[in-house]
Structures are given as C-alpha cells and as structure tokens.
C-alpha cells in the first residue's frame, strides 16, 4: 500500500518569451529556490531530485540533468530525468511522488523547465524522423484537423474557441507569473488575429515561453515541518497509446478517458464537475477545453462547448467549475514545465495559496497534462484533506 505524500512547497519563475538574464541553470535554480523557500526548507532537507523537460533539442543540451545537478543541489544524491513528451511536467510530478509514496524517500524536489528561447520549438518538433513521413506541421498543424472533426461532430458554434482564448487570458491577468498579459483581450481581438491553422487563430494558440516550475513533495510524517498548508496527493495516473492505429479515436482519445477513470477511482471522484472545485487542464489550443471537458467526463460527449459557452469554466463569470484559473497553457507555455505548472497550480488552489486567482474554498482539484499526438496522459488529484 502506498504511503501518503503531499506537496509542501511550490516555486515558479515568471514566464516570458526570453529570460536572457539567466542561464538554464539559473532558471531551474530560481524555481527550485522558490519551492524550497515556500516549504521552509534548505537543500540538505532534500533526498533526491526528479527533473523533467521536453526534447533536449529545445535547448541543444543532451541529458541536461547531468549539467544541472550542481544548480539543483543534487551532488551525492539521486537524480532522475523524465521525458514523456508534452505530458512530461505531469509525469515528472508523478514519478517524484512515487519516490515518496513508495516509502523509499522522505522528501524530494522535482523541477521541470523549458528555455524555448534557446532554440526554435517549431523546428525542433518538426525535423524529420528517419523512415517516417515528414509532417513539418508543428503542434498546431497536427491538432487542427482533429479540432475540425470535433466541431463537425458536436456542431459547436465557431466562437467556442474564441471564448476559451478570452477566458484564459482574463484569468492570466490575475496571475502575475503568466506570460501573456493582455488587458485589452476581447472576442473581437481574438477573432481579428491571424488564422494560423484553420480553425486556430494566433490568439487561440499558446505562446512560447521560458520558465521553470518546481515542487517539494514530502512524506506524511514530514508535512508538518513546512509552514504552508499541504496539498495531499489523492491519486495519480498515466496512460499511453500509439500515435496511429486503425480505428484510433483522436478527438477523445481512449488513453485520456482511461487515465481519468483511473485517477478518479483512486480519489473517489464520481462526478468530476461536482466533486472538483477547479481544474488545471493542458489546453494549448483553445478548442481543447471543450474537447477535454468531454474526455475527462465533465460533460457528456458533444456538449463540452455548452459548458464553455455558459461560463461554467470561467472564474470571472463565477462558473461552478473554473478551468485554468492561472491562465493555463494558453497564457504560458514553457513546454517541459507546462504539465507540472498544471499540477502545481491545482495544488496551489487546494493549499489556498493561489492569491488573486484563488477559487474560494477550493478543496479538491485536478491537474492534467497530455503530450505527443494526444497520446500520453498524466493526471493527479490533490486535496486539502488527506482523502
């Protein structure tokens, strides 16, 4: 039986296009120090470091955990490096948690980052794979046809994506760490932005950010040594499926549904819309909010867009199930960190430390990440209570 573990410290950097003031080591150390300070701990209190990031080609450093060990106070300790594509931030948090839940470690530091300004993510994502057809599409080009299929099936109004784009940027205005700060954001502004991959406009897409996110995860026995409220890890799950196979459901992938089912069972979630107070879900392109609302069981198939349009997912409109109060991936996307930011922001909510984007009295929250061709999933449920 797994031991109980909780998030006792969270640290993030400000997300922005270029952090030219810090090296890669400086970037991860900033997030790690913020997490340690939040947890009221020092480097010696940490037993192991679990590092995650997306492809090494984003910075041009092979296995950067080797170089980053000094910056992360890890010399003489165990260091492990996770890479599960876009879901990596979530997977890394789960691997970190398993260090403690296994009873092998008492307290670990987990850090994820991306310094996308070091390279061109579009290039790094699109260079040809040997023996495979070359898509050269980047992420937006890959997902746009799937989104069009969602619109066709669900008869969603064409402005559902715009609604999400505006909502998440309004949320971002309450989060000083968020990359995009667009005080004038409006449906008209989104609609007027250039169409990149029909139906995705420029402002319906995530930015490219530099940034890092870190968490300290502690065993139940040590939770009291940190001053803040803990976020108890009530469930965690991962699922993978191949990019392509005959009959693959790409709009609402099987792996996502299975992963949600697994994590809900662990945390006794029967009606996600009712049981959660909020969720941080990986939405890099606007339309993925209604799509994930359905995939994650917050709405019946074909009706996710109705929730979005009703304002149910908006903090500003007083919705009953606010999604991405931090501004989400649409407002900050340091790819390797983006999944962990979701997990950490879910934890901030149940710790009551989300400041201006706090959901009043949040007790239970979902953190979600996905990656690859919407084929890798990582999710966790965190709560203000142990169970």
């Amino acid at each position, binding site marked *: 039986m797994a031991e109980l573990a909780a998030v006792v410290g969270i640290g993030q950097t400000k997300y922005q296009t270029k952090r030219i003031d810090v090296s890669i080591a400086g970037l991860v150390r900033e997030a790690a120090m913020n997490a340690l300070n939040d947890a009221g701990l020092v480097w010696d209190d940490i037993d192991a470091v679990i590092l995650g990031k997306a492809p090494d080609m984003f910075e041009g450093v092979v296995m950067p955990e080797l170089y980053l060990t000094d910056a992360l106070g890890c010399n003489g300790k165990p260091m492990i490096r996770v890479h599960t594509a876009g879901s990596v931030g979530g997977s890394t948090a789960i*691997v970190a948690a398993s260090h403690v839940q296994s009873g092998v470690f008492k307290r670990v530091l987990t850090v994820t980052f991306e310094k996308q300004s070091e390279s061109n993510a579009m290039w790094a994502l699109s260079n040809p794979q040997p023996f495979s057809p070359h898509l050269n599409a980047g992420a937006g080009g890959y997902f746009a046809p799937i989104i069009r299929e969602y619109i066709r099936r669900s008869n969603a109004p064409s402005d559902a994506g715009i609604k999400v784009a505006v909502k998440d940027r309004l949320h971002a205005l309450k989060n000083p760490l968020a990359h995009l700060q667009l005080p004038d954001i409006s449906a008209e502004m989104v609609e007027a932005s250039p169409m990149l991959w029909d139906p995705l406009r420029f402002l319906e897409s995530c930015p490219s950010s530099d940034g890092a996110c870190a968490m300290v995860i502690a065993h139940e026995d040590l939770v009291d040594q940190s001053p803040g409220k803990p976020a108890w890890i009530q469930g965690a799950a991962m699922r993978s499926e191949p990019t392509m196979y005959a009959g693959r459901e790409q709009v609402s992938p099987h792996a996502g549904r299975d992963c949600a089912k697994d994590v809900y069972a662990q945390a006794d979630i029967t009606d996600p819309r009712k049981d959660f107070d909020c969720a941080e879900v990986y939405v890099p392109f606007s339309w993925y909010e209604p799509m994930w609302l359905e995939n994650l069981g917050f709405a019946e198939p074909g009706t996710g867009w109705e929730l979005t349009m009703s304002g149910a997912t908006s903090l500003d409109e007083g919705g009953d199930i606010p999604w991405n109060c931090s501004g989400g991936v649409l407002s900050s996307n340091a790819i390797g960190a983006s999944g962990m930011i979701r997990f950490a922001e879910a934890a901030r909510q149940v710790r009551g430390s989300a400041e201006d984007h706090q959901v009043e009295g949040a007790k239970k929250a979902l953190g979600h990440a996905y990656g690859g061709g919407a084929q890798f999933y990582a999710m966790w449920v965190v709560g203000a209570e142990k169970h």
Partner: protein
Amino acid sequence: MQDVAIVSFVQSDCVRYAGAQNEVELIMPVVQAALKEAGLSSVQDVDFTCSGSCDYQQGAAFAFVAGVDALGAVPPIKESHVEMDAAWALYESWLKIQMGQAESALIYGFGKSSPGELSNVLSLQLDPYYLAPLGVDTISLAAMQARSLLESGEVNEVDLAEVVVNSRANAKNNPHAQLSGDFTVDQLLAEPETVSPLRKHDCCPISDGAAAMVICTVEKAKAMGKPYAVIKGIDHRIETHHVTLRDLCRSPSVEIAAEKAGVHDAPVDVAEIYAPFSHQEIIVKRALGLDDSVAINPSGGVLAGHLFMASGLSRVGEVAKRIIAGEYKRGVAHATSGPCLQQNMILVLEGM
C-alpha cells in the same frame, strides 16, 4: 523495501550498423522475446512499462514516441520514459512496485548510435556555457581521467590492457558481443595510442541494438513458476558535473550507492560493470571494494559491445541471467551516465 524479481532479460546482438532497421524494428524482437521468456503473451499482461533512450542518437525530437509503436499499446497502457539509460527505467519501475501500484513491469532500452558520431554527440552533454563550446568529446575526457589515474601511480598501462584482455576473452562466450577473442597484454600494448594514454581497444565499440527485461513481485514470480533473480538493493547517485572539481581517480557516487544498496553486507561473487573505457572498470571496481576473487564482466562488458542507453540495463540482465543459471550466488550490477562516470547506479542481485 520488498524484494523484486527479475524474471526475464533479452538483448539484441551488438552490431556496429543496424542498417535500415528503425527503432521499432530494434525494440520489437527483444520486447517480444522478454515477454515470452516470462510466459507473458503481450504488454497488456504487465502493469507498467518504462523505457530509456536518447533523442540525439537518432537526431530527432521525441524519438521514444515511435518506441510505443513496438509495444502493442492498444488498449492504452501505463507507460513512462526516462531520457537516461534504461537502468533508470528499471529504477522507476521498481519504485512503482514498491508503492504497490504495479506487480509487474516491462523495461526496455534502445539506441541506434550509427547515424551519428556518438563521442561528438555526447560532447553536447556538457555544460553548454563553459564546457560544450570547448568541443571536448567523450574519448578525450575519458583520456584525461585515464591520465590522472596512471599518474596517481596506483595503476599502470598493463592493468588497463588486462581489463581488455579479460573482456575480449569473456566475450567469446557471449553470442551478442561485437568484439571478442584471445589477446595478450603485450599484443595490446604494441598498438598505438589513439587519444593518449588510451588505445583504440581501451574504448568501447559503438553498437546499435536494444534490451528488454520483465520484473515483478516475488509472489507473482513464484506464481508464474519461472526461475528468477532477486533485486536485494538498488541505489543511484550523481556527482558534480565539472570534471575539474572531481578526483577523477575515485568514484564517490559509486561508493555511496554501493553502501546504500548493501554491496558490503555479504560476499559478492560476480559483478557487471558499465565501463565504456578500460580504466573506468578499475575505478568502479575499487569504489565497490571488490577483490580479485570476484568475476568481473563475464559477458565481456561494454568493451565487448555498447548499446548506449541500454547498456546499464544489460549489465543488470547479465548478472541476473547468471544467478538464475546458478553460476553465481550474489552479484553486483553497475550502470553509469555522463562524462567520466558522473552518475552511477548500483544493484545487488541474489538467487531465489
């Protein structure tokens, strides 16, 4: 910690050039064979799957994603990946079993190094601001380490050559080895130095291939009725990245990991050491505190064939295989990563 059983291990032949075979074609045969050896019919029969690989070998982001195509992950599976040697994928899987989230796991590692120049590619592992711009490749860094070891006066070039003589001789019994044969120390020392003080044979060959393993709880292994080896201890540690700040003749990370894994708790009779350069075998052996009665690298080690990203897992598998066969009682397996043995993992394996 609960004991974890290794029930199967399979690795491909170490070949210099796997031709047009892609990663899926390298992975599938070993995964299928490892599952079969464990009496399982597909990846759906294990609770967790974890792999290790490096994008830069194939020169494309998300190289591991195609690896999933080799598994048969429909319906979806619980799966994860480390951008590390697959020995660390084994570690992640071991944690999953410890926490009770899995009773069994499939682990695999793969690498196709032939498309590039591995020692140059790995120079990109170095600190990108202070070290990588120097363009120091892996072999040159290892040569610096060998030089400091020779200059310590505790080791001489005959010792280095003996490591290679033993590796090549042992590899004669390993059908997957790339290099094997009978050599004498004099023969080897007559060869020219390539990157002084290292000679070509002091450096591991570069190989394409893959390896896979199935582990499970001891209860499950018993129920399966298959022979198995038991992981009694496992630990890994990393040191500072900056080689100039380290005593390159020693490996404190191996020393800590060996202590934590319980290497010294009882006598050891076999060890598989992941030493891509001959002198590194000596450093690790000393850090492990092993004497000359211990059989070192009966497979030939990575000097006989180096499946980069799977070699660590292979060391574990080679020890497990021999313990299962009853050749040895208590063995140590070692995995490494980074320049000059920066990061190391140690496992202690015993029989059932």
